[in-house]
């Protein structure tokens, strides 16, 4: 409890109210699928980690949307993750060092924290054609992945590209891209989404800091707390589906009434994600909330299996 008070004091100094603080802890524990009694312990973890867990964040073939999404976390804020929670040793988009100094940071961190760092991978890996379609610092992404990932305590694939190959692996996959798991022949923890909701990454990290282990996963590597149920099952428009009330054209009266989007191609029934519960951007909105069908972006190969996006499958 002392820890919690100290942490709360710290938060208050930063202009966070008691109410915000309790919401913050409750939000995280809920995101992790934990009961509310765990909230104070989450606060404890954030208050005083002995050593900030080292993170090496690798960018392969991607659009940086996953990083953009991750930095929009608000419980905790990204500056808290950077300064107080994690030690982000390598992250090309935000790190200050460049060129060979940046490379040195990567090599040093892998050596210093061998078997102890979390690797967060963003993007798919060019595998065919000797990996020539994706390079950083003269090395193929495949070479970089092979030299870093086997040394990690755990690897989190953030986003559908790292988890399952993503858009560049869609047919005909001209660059020969594969998921991290396929490229290296290893098992990874996957937080898919295009982009993934930052709450699911944070929930996973908290789980690790808190329990000392990663959360329980489904058969394709996704944390069950976030990807255990379908969008359809938790959709606020579900009753319209049951009642046979569908939107058949955007902009119609039915669209105004918030009817079910199934006939406009909604892939909610085949998509396992907590989007309806968590929403995006700190619960501001989400796809179906904005009247557009779910595209199944957390599912493997959704660019091929869920398209055309706006047609009933």
């Amino acid at each position: 409890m002392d820890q919690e008070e100290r942490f709360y004091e710290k938060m208050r100094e930063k202009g966070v109210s008691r109410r915000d603080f309790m919401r913050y802890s409750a939000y995280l524990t809920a995101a992790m699928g934990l009961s509310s009694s765990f909230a104070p312990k989450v606060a404890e973890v954030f208050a005083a980690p002995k050593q900030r867990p080292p993170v090496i964040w690798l960018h392969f073939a991607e659009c940086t949307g996953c990083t953009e999404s991750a930095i929009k976390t608000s419980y905790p804020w990204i500056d808290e993750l950077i300064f107080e929670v994690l030690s982000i040793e390598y992250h090309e988009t935000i790190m200050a060092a460049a060129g060979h100094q940046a490379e040195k940071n990567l090599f040093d961190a892998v050596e210093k924290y061998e078997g102890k760092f979390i690797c967060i991978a963003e993007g798919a890996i060019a595998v065919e054609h000797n990996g020539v379609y994706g390079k950083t610092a003269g090395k193929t992404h495949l070479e970089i992945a092979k030299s870093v990932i086997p040394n990690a305590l755990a690897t989190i694939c953030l986003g559908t590209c790292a988890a399952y190959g993503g858009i560049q692996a869609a047919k005909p996959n001209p660059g020969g891209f594969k998921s991290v798991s396929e490229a290296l022949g290893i098992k990874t923890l996957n937080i898919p989404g295009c982009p993934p909701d930052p709450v699911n990454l944070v929930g996973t990290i908290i789980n690790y800091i808190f329990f000392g282990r990663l959360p329980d996963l489904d058969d394709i590597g996704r944390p069950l707390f976030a990807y255990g149920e379908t969008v359809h099952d938790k959709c606020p428009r579900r009753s319209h589906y049951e009642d046979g009330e569908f939107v058949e054209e955007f902009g119609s009266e039915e669209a105004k009434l918030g009817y079910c989007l199934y006939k406009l191609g909604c892939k909610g029934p085949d998509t396992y994600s907590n989007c309806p519960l968590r929403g995006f951007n700190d619960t501001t909105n989400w796809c179906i909330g904005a009247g557009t069908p779910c595209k199944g972006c957390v599912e493997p190969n959704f660019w091929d299996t869920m398209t055309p996006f706006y047609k009933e499958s």
Partner: protein
Amino acid sequence: MHDILRIDPVTRIEGHLGIEVKVKNGKVVDAWSSGTLFRGIETILIGRDPADAPVFTQRSCGVCTYSHLICSLRAVENAIGVTIPPNARILRNLLHGAQLVADHIVHFYHLHALDWVDVISAISANVKKTAELADSVSNWERGGVKFYTQVQQRLKTFVDSGQLGIFNNAYWGHPAYKLPPEANLMAAAHYIEALRVQTRAAKMLSIFGGKAPHPDAPVVGGLTCIRDLTPDRIAEFKYMWQYTQEFIENVYMPDLLAVAGFYKDWGAIGGTTNFLTWGDFPQTDKEPESFFMPRGVIMDRDLKNIKTSDPSKVLEHIKHSWYKKGKPKHPAVEETLPEAGEYDRDKKYSWIKAPRYDGKPCEVGPLARVLVAYAKGHKEIKEAVDNTLKTLDVPVEALFSTLGRTAARAIETVVIGRQMDGWINELLTNIKNGDDKIYQSWTMPEGTVRGAGLNDVARGALGHWIEIEKGKIKNYQYVVPSTWNLGPRCDKGKLGPVEQSLIGTPVQDVEKPIEVLRTVHSFDPCLSCAVHVVDYDTNKSCKARIC
């Protein structure tokens, strides 16, 4: 005696970029820009439903997340002949504005600032003097001795932990850093503030777009967010806009001016020659006439002789890019095959092609937009530019520089941000008058149709070209801002804009070429979409030949 320096990876950008410079007697005498990732999204698009193209191309970039979406929508809508309702145009402008201002804030504070601001030096700042400095340049509500004491303590605790994380092994203490510790602390505090501001600014995209990054509500024909056109949602948008705009006016712009005051010599370094915009933010259905940011081209820095840019004058060159030989062609009729090769700066050294306008390399982006608007006598831009030049006490020529590029970005953030308020009110008025139409239904033509979408997005001029046959995508091609800026030499050996801008840059320490990074970052490189290819003739997927 000269050294060739290679900076790879160039960090604090989107995507994968390597820069090489030849340094002689402390100055850059030659430069090479190399994009090192190829994804092939256009190839993947072939044969798919045109309505899906915006969803696919949006994934070209998660940083300029809205940019490709809007451009692709315009290309498809142009091809199938649908005109979106006025409210859809206003909403798209609002989303585009939100994207642009949030993007520029992130660029200035998180991608660019560390080239000018020594975060470690902030630890030795006098907090009282820092608070005074901040009060003298800004009206931002968060400041004062207590605030800066807390920020400094936070930085100290972070540094004392021995885990420097993202700040490890950078160029701290480099003599090219000119700010006093107090200015460094002020800027470092705002670096942290801006991390939170961008999170809130992104909510604007989410309110009417569904999520950010990668908003989903804009679709071919308009938008789907009809249920979000309620007073409370519009108020929420307006609140987030106001919060963001206050930060832009009271923190971003004052910081830009304060920092620039210490680096005025950069008003003569890093310039280019030609500038191109397609223009954007249509205020009626008349285009390009009604664009708030106008269309135009400036050659040889001649602000008195501005012309309207003509998309048919664009050709892409590939002599120095990893593609099979071919003559320069217009993007809409391009035939290209990737041919992976070794890095050879005399021959081929990049996945990026070299687009040329009328045979000339052109810089695109905020500086090009601000120059074109300024030259056309754009009231708001002219006033903001003149104020900035006056405050910094520099001549108009100083705009053609790294400093000018970074200042132009802040200037347009202020001006476009302010304009958004008018768009919000326009939307409200329409809804009050009973017009809530945001979607126009359409049918897919049966024959072959072609369309183009031209935009000016955060990083510059963006063009998408589509050909649809029997309801499927036959061809798709785009020429993006970073292709213009970061492309290699063309067939005639003319350097790309970034390459050209680096010539003459001073480099004090070849081990720590911070000066090179300043200019490269000032372009806000965004690489994941800069590399693109499609085979227009055979309509088949590209096969790579590995050397």
